[in-house]
């Protein structure tokens, strides 16, 4: 198997819909539930605003704190009488986008740093890992708050700030895995065959750390969505009146007894989104891991 891994040139890729990984993924019921959750949420967020008879920004103080199911307000209204369903879907677009973009940015960057540092080792590796350490030594709250004081809080900036504070863990985990892999036979074999460092890093090592990366990446989406909520909680996040799941949830804690739906609705949306992503990530992990069939 090891020999095959290296010597056999990557044959023309099998058509993706016939790949074993996909089949394995499709066999994973939890993963499918996850996909269904994310698809449903995404569709709701994209189409929802067109289907509802309310504008997410329209304030109507007479209608404030309407409980779910009052008239056409399926999820009720907020302290300014705005329709929560309309806000929820609009907010979902922003929160999901922020969460996924931040995850993509931080995972790509973290993986890159981790693979390079782990494989090359030596001075370059040490230097890279000290940079990782330097970033890790700043508590994320410090970076979040300090950066927020500099930039104007647009969704793009929030995404960048979150990405800046989340890539290090991926890098750290990838580095540790790659470091433990690089003395393995298949890597030594690849070196003997004469593959370049870049090929070894990205064709031989990277596929072998997809598992941990996926696990870390899914946790990062969760983190990103929750961080957005936290920044918005502190008031430096998405600025009103633009809704995000974070800023919807955060005003809500004051009304927990009086209007619990203010906290429950966006809370459930966040939980669904994050759980869905995690289910998918888990399924992907099993599916992508070439060895999981061999047990």
């Amino acid at each position, binding site marked *: 198997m090891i020999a095959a891994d290296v010597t056999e040139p990557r044959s023309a890729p099998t058509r993706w819909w016939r790949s074993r990984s996909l089949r394995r993924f499709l066999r994973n019921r939890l993963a499918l539930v996850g996909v269904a959750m994310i698809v449903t949420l995404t569709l709701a967020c994209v189409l929802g605003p067109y289907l509802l008879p309310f504008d997410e920004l329209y304030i109507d103080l007479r209608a404030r704190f309407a409980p779910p199911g009052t008239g056409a307000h399926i999820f009720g209204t907020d302290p300014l009488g705005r329709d929560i369903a309309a806000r929820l879907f609009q907010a979902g677009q922003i929160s999901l986008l922020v969460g996924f973009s931040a995850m993509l940015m931080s995972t790509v960057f973290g993986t890159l740093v981790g693979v390079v540092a782990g494989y090359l080792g030596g001075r370059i590796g040490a230097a890279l890992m000290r940079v990782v350490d330097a970033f890790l030594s700043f508590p994320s709250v*410090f970076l979040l708050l300090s950066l927020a004081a500099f930039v104007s809080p647009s969704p793009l900036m929030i995404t960048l700030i979150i990405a800046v504070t989340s890539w290090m863990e991926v890098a750290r985990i990838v580095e540790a895995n790659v470091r433990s892999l690089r003395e393995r036979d298949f890597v030594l074999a690849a070196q003997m065959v004469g593959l370049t460092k870049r090929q070894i890093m990205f064709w031989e090592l990277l596929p072998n750390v997809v598992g941990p990366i996926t696990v870390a990446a899914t946790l990062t989406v969760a983190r990103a969505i929750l961080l957005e909520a936290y920044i918005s909680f502190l008031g430096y996040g998405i600025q009103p009146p633009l809704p995000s799941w974070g800023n919807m949830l955060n005003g809500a804690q004051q009304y927990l007894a009086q209007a619990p739906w203010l906290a429950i609705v966006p809370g459930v949306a966040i939980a669904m989104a994050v759980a869905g992503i995690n289910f998918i990530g888990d399924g992907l992990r099993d599916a992508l891991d070439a060895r999981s069939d061999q047990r």
Partner: protein
Amino acid sequence: MVRYLLSRCGQSLVLLFLVSLIGFMVLNLAPGGPLSQFALTPGMTKEALDRIAEQMGLNRPLPIQYLDWLWHLIRGDWGVSYRDGRPVLEVIGSHLFATLLLMGTATFFAVLIGASVGIKGALAQGSAFDTTTTVAAMIALSIPTFWFGLVAIYVFSLWLGWLPAGNMYTVGDGSVGDYARHLILPSMVLALVEVAVWSRYMRAATLEVISQDFVRTAKAKGLPPRRVVMKHIVGNALVPMITLAGLQLPTLLGGALVTETVFTWPGMGRLFLDSLGYNDYPVVMGLLMFSAILVLIGNLAADLLAASIDPRIRLD
């Protein structure tokens, strides 16, 4: 080995210097300053603020302020808090115990429960237990901590009246039982998320190990399954866990921040948030350095431990 340690120490000093420089710049270049909190005080004037700034040396050029701070630090003087005038180390020290107590309790339960659940789930991949714990962990990870904390207070303090709504102890009591009662809610809230993290990583790491050749070899050799699990699988799966543990050390500072706020726990997280909010630069800088040192120690310890467990990892 000695050479390795020396070189790591050298790197660490450079790192500390970088952290302090970046931290100082970010703090001081951000608009606003330590005196802005007094702006809305009735009767406060720009004149008074300027005078106080001058007395505090805040209007000196930034490089001078930085070098002044660094010079004092090198001589072991971490400065005094702008807020209450106490030495920075004393301020940090007075919040350390609360955080250690909370984080220690939470982490202890989190690791114990998380690791067992993760291993058990991985060994019985796809079983009802695995599915249930996986789903539970993911849901736990999806709940914002402050929200969960508030719900816990509503249920256990207001509704049932079983546990106190916050604080570390009752003023005037302070017995061990009193501390324990106050500790339950915040540490459980904190542990919930931690359990989820630990069990997810432990499960992934165990799965990784299970599929490797030496485990199959061990099984093929006919070793009793129990021994295979304990010696080969758990032992090897623990390596990445040690890295994770190293990573968790600095979260001492920020990790409990939200929980500390919700439960009015007088720890480091809240000190940090307060100091940042009041632009108490000496304390913030002190906490940054403290946190950086924790990271360095955590990483070094993780690397050394990992190397001593897994002979394939070479220190260089």
